[in-house]
């Protein structure tokens, strides 16, 4: 009986501490996101943000937490998993925030492959475009080998049937490498094939450098 009581008390204490942490963090989320205050708490704030994200039911508030993950830029497996669960959400604002934040909280090939998949196959041109943005700008924790695989995926996308996909793929490549190698997404298929060949040679050299 005494042990049970002690356990309950300990559990209540832990729950109470967690609740006060969540209350503290929530103050910095709404009505206005204060990333500086969250950063001052330190990396432990990430687990609190994950808990809040998973409890939250309104997409708008989830989007704000996703923004916080983005701006903090701290790696977190739990944050990545929580965000991935909303990668296909129907709420556009949340969807975009999730796409942008994923690369800022992780260096996971699965995230890169997911974003490449969105870039190439999503029904919405907006989501395709923003997935390319995320690949171009927000994969900040990738190892050199992971960056190579991401770029390889972008080069593969140059051969896509969809002109918009080819266009956003070459934009992402240009941001990542500084060059286009003359690839024009609207050129003839033979021209495009020749430029893709140039990119492949470049990729082979890149792989050799690794």
């Amino acid at each position, binding site marked *: 009986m005494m042990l049970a009581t002690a356990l309950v008390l300990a559990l209540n204490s832990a729950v109470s501490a967690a609740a006060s942490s969540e209350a503290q963090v929530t103050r910095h989320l709404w009505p206005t996101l204060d990333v500086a205050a969250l950063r001052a708490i330190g990396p432990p704030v990430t687990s609190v943000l994950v808990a809040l994200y998973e409890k939250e039911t309104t997409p708008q508030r989830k989007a704000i937490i996703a923004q916080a993950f983005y701006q903090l830029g*701290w790696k977190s497996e739990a944050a990545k998993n929580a965000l991935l669960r909303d990668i296909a959400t129907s709420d556009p604002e949340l969807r975009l925030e999730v796409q942008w934040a994923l690369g800022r909280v992780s260096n996971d090939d699965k995230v890169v492959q997911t974003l490449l998949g969105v870039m190439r196959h999503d029904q919405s041109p907006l989501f395709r475009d923003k997935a390319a943005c995320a690949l171009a700008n927000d994969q900040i924790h990738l190892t050199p080998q992971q960056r190579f695989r991401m770029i390889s995926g972008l080069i593969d996308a140059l051969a896509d049937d969809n002109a918009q996909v080819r266009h956003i793929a070459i934009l992402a490549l240009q941001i990542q490498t500084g060059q286009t190698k003359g690839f024009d997404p609207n050129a003839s298929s033979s021209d495009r094939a020749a430029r893709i060949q140039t990119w492949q040679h470049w990729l082979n050299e890149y792989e050799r450098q690794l």
Partner: protein
Amino acid sequence: MTPTRRPRLPLTLCAAALLFLPSLRSTAADSIAYDFDDALTATGPDTFQIFEHASGTVELSNIYRHSGNRSVKVTDAASSNDFPEMQGYFPVQSEGQLAFAFHMLVADTKEELNVALAGPAHFQLTKDGIAFWLIVRDGYFFHMSDGMPKRLGPAASFLWYGVRVDYDISRGTYRLEIRDEFNSQPPILVESAANAPNQPASAVNMFSFIGDLADNSNVDYYIDDVVLDVGRSQGTSLVAPGRRKLFVEYWRDFQKLRREQPVCLPALSVADFGLSLQEIDAASRSTVLQLADLAPGDGRNEKQIVASKPADGVVLWHRGCFALANEHYDDATQLFERAAQLLPQSRLIALSKVLSRAGAGRWDAVDRELALIYPTWWGDERWVAAQGMIALRRQDYPKAEDLLAPFNNDKAGRWLGAELTTSELQQIRTELGTQWWAVLRSRLLIEQRFYLYIWQNQLAEAAAFATAMRERLTAAKQSAGLWWEWEGNIHLLMNDPTRALDCYLSAFADNVMLGRSSTSVAMKLSDVYFVLGDARQEKRFREIVYGTLD
């Protein structure tokens, strides 16, 4: 050193967050060199911007330097959400040749750092963005060329590397050469490398030294002898860096000045004013250091500086220094006291006040206040200069036997060779009771007497004095490490590095036995092995120095 600069390239005056104003050396008309020595010499428009965030810092260091007596240390910290950066600017160069060279020492080459030359499009992989990008990571050098990272070769810790980039702007290619100071590894040489985005005519107007971008790095690294040269052909020599300046050369410079009138010593960082990065924002930091660097008596420009509590304190210190330089000692003391009320943690203001007391001949006050601030100056070259000025001013010291009288018992004897840290100063009162002040004062006077020999260039007498002190301590079975070290300093001043080495090794052994910090002796051992040309031992003691730093 009072550098002059006559660049044909006008350099942009930069904005806030200056941490120091590096001295510039004029070489040829179109070249600029930064050696970071003798900082706070105002030389005209400045070209640096320092970004410090959270735990990262950019500061002057006299621990490791390739030439002269200082370098710049960049320290990054993981999870600080940003990176520290030293950024320098020059007029946009969109054609022709540009040479960029520097020396770099990295404490742990497994930690990442990045160096770049970039243009008006800033640090992006695009034309007129990053042209040259050097990375150190995982024990290797890499460069970003043609949009991909390319491995260059191994990068060893605690070695000075000379890096030179000859950039053909119009072609968008560069020649890269990296050599270590001892040529212990084959040099890294890359000819006609495509610039980072593989874009011809990619203009440049800035360079940058940072930690890492992903915020995972805890790198410490040191930069020295940054040189930029426009229009010089590839492979031709740039400015030869000055020779590394040992601490004894700094002492020799001071000997030449033979200052018998005390003057203020220069501020090197906001820490000299008792301010930390957490206490002072970037704008205030800039203000503090601009004020510190004004010529004494330059009251007009003080008014242009935004007022703040730290700034007011520095203004008062500055005015006190002017009064001190003009031998108005009591006025100087009052100004320093007022400054100290605003900046009570400033060791520099406290030392300046001691110097004003010395100017006025108030020796009781000098002795008392010197004892209080002694621990805050341990290991700083400026302290030695201050002691020298006080000794030259004082001149009249009791005979050696009178100075040594308080040490004539077992309890007091050890204090002749004790390092006067804060905890030791607390201990002296506990151990010696009512005798503590007599012992401590005598110890301070003995040290000043020793410095008086040095500053009057009576080096043989100084060596004999140090020998006598350590033999006395040894005979009493007390630690003599401190006097071994000081005797070594004299032999190095006398250009006898072999004898200096023997003394330093004895001091080092003594410190190790007592579990005392060996930073000071390890630095000197590193320097003396440098003089003796023993690269392996020099590097070994560099690593020991690093291991003793907090």
